[in-house]
């Protein structure tokens, strides 16, 4: 990873998709994407290459938690070409509303694991929690999403 552009080429798309799913709003996602990468660029020299992905998700998650402002213009997630495949027979279009209804810490855990396809250890690292806590959050969120879709 030699330049900022390399970092964006490797992870820009998935972080942008994550920002859209977390916020459900294009302008908020744009803000979150920019804040995340500006913070990443500022810390670029001090980060090891082997955990860049989880590190970026952690920045994005923390930035989203910091700034919970909503804007009027919502993006219809089912219009988007999605990075991750559908998981567990639940389409992303179906779960978009259910995801938005989740409490923030469960929403982030659910999207990271079920949509962005991070491992539980990566989810834990991104959310600065234990792996057990990450599993619990994903499990709780999955239960709620399934109930919402039932």
């Amino acid at each position, binding site marked *: 990873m030699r*330049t900022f552009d390399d970092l*964006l080429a490797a992870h820009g*798309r998935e972080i942008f998709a994550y920002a859209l799913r977390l916020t459900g709003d*294009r302008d908020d*996602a*744009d803000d979150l994407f920019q804040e995340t990468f500006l913070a990443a*660029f*500022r810390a*670029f020299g001090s980060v090891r290459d082997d955990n860049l992905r989880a590190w970026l998700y952690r920045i994005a998650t923390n930035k989203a938690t910091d700034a919970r402002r909503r804007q009027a213009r919502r993006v219809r997630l089912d219009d988007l070409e999605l*990075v991750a495949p559908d998981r567990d027979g639940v389409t992303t279009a179906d779960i978009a509303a259910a995801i938005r209804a989740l409490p923030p810490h469960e929403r982030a855990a659910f999207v990271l694991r079920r949509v962005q396809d991070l491992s539980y250890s990566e989810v834990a690292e991104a959310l600065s929690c234990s792996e057990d806590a990450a599993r619990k959050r994903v499990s709780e969120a999955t239960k709620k999403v399934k109930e919402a879709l039932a």
Partner: protein
Amino acid sequence: MTLDAMLAESRERLASRAIAEGVARVAVDVMDSPLGPLWLALGPRGVLAIHYGASGYEGDLRRIVARYGPGVLRAPKRLDEVKRELDEYFAGKRTRFELSVDLSALTPFQRRILAATKRVPFGTVRSYREIATRAGMPTASRATGNALGANPIPIVVPCHRIVGSDGSLHGYAGGLDRKRWLLRLEGIPG
């Protein structure tokens, strides 16, 4: 609007902001030209590189990162002025570039040779020996050829206007066909 279209807009805004805030220092992009794609790099002091081709610019990138750090971002709009002047030149509507060039990552010798080369006017040629003489080193024709062969900013630093004392084209990092094309554009039969 697709995810990729939104991402492209966000990346452009991110790059502008990162460069405006001084977090990133170098904008890069690729433009089309009659000589094929050109990879362009623009730093805080001027144009850093014009590379023939959309790939194979690793040597330029290494030099840029060594000079300005890893803050290199694809930022098409930041390069609009560079592209505009190049487009005008290729269309025969410009005979002189206003763009600043940044030679600060080069050796003092390379800088002197390229500075002398930059002063050679449109539509004229000079020999390697003349350039060496103008740079204050009349016996350094061969080293002059090497410095011109490694010119990171061809076209704007017009190393295509430097030919052998006998008028032969000698070499060109972008290939002799491109050198011939550029000289013809400037009214000099190859």
